[in-house]
C-alpha cells in the first residue's frame, strides 16, 4: 500500500512537468508583452526592453521553459510579473482558501446528491425518481455565476441571512461566508453525484449478494445500509474525484462572484494580465490538488473495496492516473 502511494506520488512528477509544459507554451504564445503589463502604458521603449531582459523574455521560449523547470525543481516558482512578489508565497497563501471552498462544495454535492440518488434508485421510474432527478439537474443546468448572483441577491440582500461576499475569519464567520459559495459551487457536482448514486445503486440492487442478504432475513434498512450503500460508494467516489476537477474550474467563477480570495481568482487575474509565472504557479497547485484528490480517491477505494487493496499490495502501480469511468457535465 505504502509502496503504491509512493509510486503514485512519483508518477505525479511527469504529469506536473507536462502540465507546466502545456500551460507555459499556451501562455508564452499569447500576444501581449509582460514588460508592458508590469510597467504600464506609459513606459518608454528602453525601459520596456530592459524589463524584458530582466525577465529573461529576450531568450527563446524553449530556453525560458527549461529555466523555469529548472527553477521549479529548486522550489522556485518565480516571481509575479504584476506585483513582483514570489509566486510561491502568493499561491501558498491562497491555496487553503480554495481547498476549503472546494471541499465544502464537494460536501454540498454529497449532501444533496447521495440522498436524492438513493431515493431515486429505490423508487426507480416513479414520480419521485423523475422529480428528484429534475430538481438536481436544475442545479447543474444553471450557469454557475448566475446562480451565485441570484443566491446572494436572495440570501444576502433580501433576507440578510448570510454575507454576500468575502471570507470570514474565525470559525463561525467562516462557516457563514462559506455557505453561498459552497452551494454555488456544489450544485453542479451534485447532479453528477445524484446520477452516479442512482445508477450505481441500481447496479448494486441487481446483485446476487443483495438477494443473499435478504434471504438471511435482514431488514430492508440493514440491507440498504450494510450491503448496498458501501458497494455503491465505489463509483460515487470516482465521480467525486473527477468532479473535483470541475469544481476547481468552477472555483474561478465562484470565487470572483463571492470575492473569495482563492486560487481561482488569482488564476483569472493572472490570465487576463498575462502574468505567466502566476498562472503557472496557480495551475500547478490546482493540478497537484487534483492529483492528490485522485490519489485519495484511490486510497479510499482500497478502504472500501478489499479487492482493490490487494491489487495495490500485490502489483504496486498497475493503473495509474485517473479513473476509468469519467463523467462530463
Amino acid at each position, binding site marked *: 500500500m505504502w509502496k503504491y502511494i509512493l509510486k503514485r506520488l512519483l508518477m505525479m512528477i511527469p504529469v506536473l512537468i507536462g502540465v507546466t509544459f502545456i500551460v507555459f507554451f499556451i501562455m508564452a504564445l499569447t500576444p501581449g508583452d509582460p514588460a508592458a503589463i508590469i510597467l504600464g502604458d506609459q513606459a518608454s521603449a528602453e525601459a520596456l526592453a530592459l524589463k524584458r531582459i530582466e525577465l529573461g523574455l529576450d531568450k527563446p521560449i524553449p530556453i525560458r521553459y527549461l529555466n523555469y523547470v529548472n527553477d521549479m525543481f529548486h522550489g522556485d516558482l518565480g516571481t509575479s510579473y504584476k506585483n513582483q512578489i514570489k509566486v510561491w508565497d502568493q499561491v501558498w497563501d491562497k491555496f487553503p482558501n480554495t481547498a476549503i471552498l472546494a471541499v465544502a462544495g464537494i460536501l454540498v454535492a454529497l449532501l444533496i446528491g447521495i440522498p436524492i440518488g438513493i431515493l431515486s434508485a429505490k423508487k426507480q421510474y416513479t414520480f419521485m425518481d423523475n422529480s428528484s432527478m429534475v430538481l438536481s439537474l436544475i442545479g447543474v443546468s444553471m450557469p454557475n455565476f448566475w446562480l451565485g448572483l441570484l443566491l446572494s441577491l436572495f440570501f444576502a440582500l433580501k433576507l440578510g441571512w448570510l454575507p454576500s461576499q468575502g471570507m470570514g475569519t474565525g470559525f463561525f464567520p467562516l462557516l457563514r461566508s462559506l455557505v453561498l459559495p459552497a452551494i454555488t459551487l456544489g450544485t453542479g457536482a451534485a447532479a453528477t453525484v445524484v446520477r452516479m448514486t442512482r445508477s450505481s445503486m441500481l447496479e448494486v440492487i441487481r446483485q446476487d449478494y443483495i438477494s443473499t442478504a435478504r434471504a438471511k432475513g435482514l431488514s430492508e434498512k440493514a440491507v440498504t445500509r450494510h450491503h448496498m450503500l458501501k458497494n455503491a460508494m465505489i463509483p460515487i467516489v470516482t465521480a467525486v474525484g473527477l468532479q473535483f476537477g470541475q469544481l476547481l474550474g468552477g472555483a474561478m467563477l465562484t470565487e470572483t462572484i463571492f470575492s473569495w480570495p482563492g486560487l481561482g481568482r488569482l488564476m483569472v487575474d493572472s490570465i487576463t494580465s498575462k502574468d505567466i509565472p502566476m498562472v503557472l504557479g496557480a495551475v500547478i497547485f490546482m493540478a497537484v490538488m487534483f492529483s492528490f484528490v485522485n490519489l485519495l480517491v484511490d486510497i479510499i477505494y482500497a478502504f472500501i473495496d478489499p479487492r482493490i487493496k490487494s491489487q495495490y499490495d*500485490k*502489483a*504496486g502501480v*498497475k493503473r495509474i492516473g485517473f479513473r476509468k469511468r469519467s463523467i462530463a457535465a
Partner: protein
Amino acid sequence: MAEKQEILRVEHLKKYFDTPSGSLHAVDDLSFSINKGETLGVVGESGCGKSTLGRTILRLHEPTSGNIWFEGREINSCNKREMKNLRKHMQIIFQDPFASLNPRMTVGETISESLLIQKLVGRKDKAKLEKEVTELMDMVGIAPRLINSYPHELDGGRRQRVGIARVLALRPQFIVCDEPVSALDVSIQAQVLNLMQDLQEEFGFTYLFITHDLSVVKHLSNEILVMYLGKMVEKAPASALFANPLHPYTQALLSAIPVPDPDFPVSRILLEGELTSPIDPKPGCRFARRCPKATEACLKGDIPFIEVEPNHFAACIMIGKT
C-alpha cells in the same frame, strides 16, 4: 476408417502470459497431433489452459515457444497474408454464443462477414451473397426469416448455430470448438452436438473439441487429451480412456461426473483442495498436491509423458506402482 492422414501437429507448444505477479504458464509444453476428419477432445478444469491452447494454435495468441504444423506447414513463420489465407482452413467456435457475436450485426451480416473478409464472394455481388447466406442458415437450421435479427433477439441455441454458420461458410478443414455447448441447455446442447456431428460427416471436418464435460466428448471424440494446469496428463483413444483411466487425475475426474442414473454405482474419489495458481509453478507433478497417491518423488524433476499402453499416454510416475 480410411487411411489416417495427419492434419495438425503441435510440438512443445508453450504459452506463458506475463502478469503483474509473475509468468503464468497457461500452456506448458504440449505435443500432439490430430488426423484428418477426426476429433481430439481436450478436457480439464477451468483455467487449465484449454482455451489458450485452442487460441494459440490459431495464432490468436502468439506462442511463447514451440511449433505448429498445419497440413505440413509451419504456421509460426507465416506472415500476415499467409496467415489470412490459412484462416480459411482453420477456424474456431466459441463457448459463449452471445459474446462471440457482434451485437450490432444481424444474423445475415455476421454470416456474410466470413465470406467478405476472405473474399469468397465479392462485396458487390449482393445476390450471390444472399444466396450463400440463406444456404448456410439452412444448413445449420436457422429459419430464413431470422436473417435480419440481432443476436439479442435469438436464444442461445440459435446464436450458437449462427456461430457455426459463420465458420461453416469457409468450409475449413480444421475447427477448434471451445466449449461450444457448455452454455446451452441440455436439449439444445444435444441439438447442437448433433448438428456438429452431421457437419463433420458431411464435410469431413477435423475438430479440436474443448470441454470440461467428459461425457460430452465421450461420444464425439476419437482421442481425448486431459490437461491439468497447462500440462498434458493423459492422452488416449476415447474408449481406452474411459475403460482404463491411468492418471489419478483422470480417475478422479471420471468419478466426479454425476451420472443420470440412480442405480449407477458411485465410487467417488474426492479430491482435496482445488486447482492452484499456474503462476511460476514449481517443478514436479502439478497435480501432486491434490493427488491421493502422491509421494515425495512426484515433486522432483519433470514428469515424463509416457506411452503406457499402445496409444495411451500418461504423465505419472506412480503408474503401476500401487
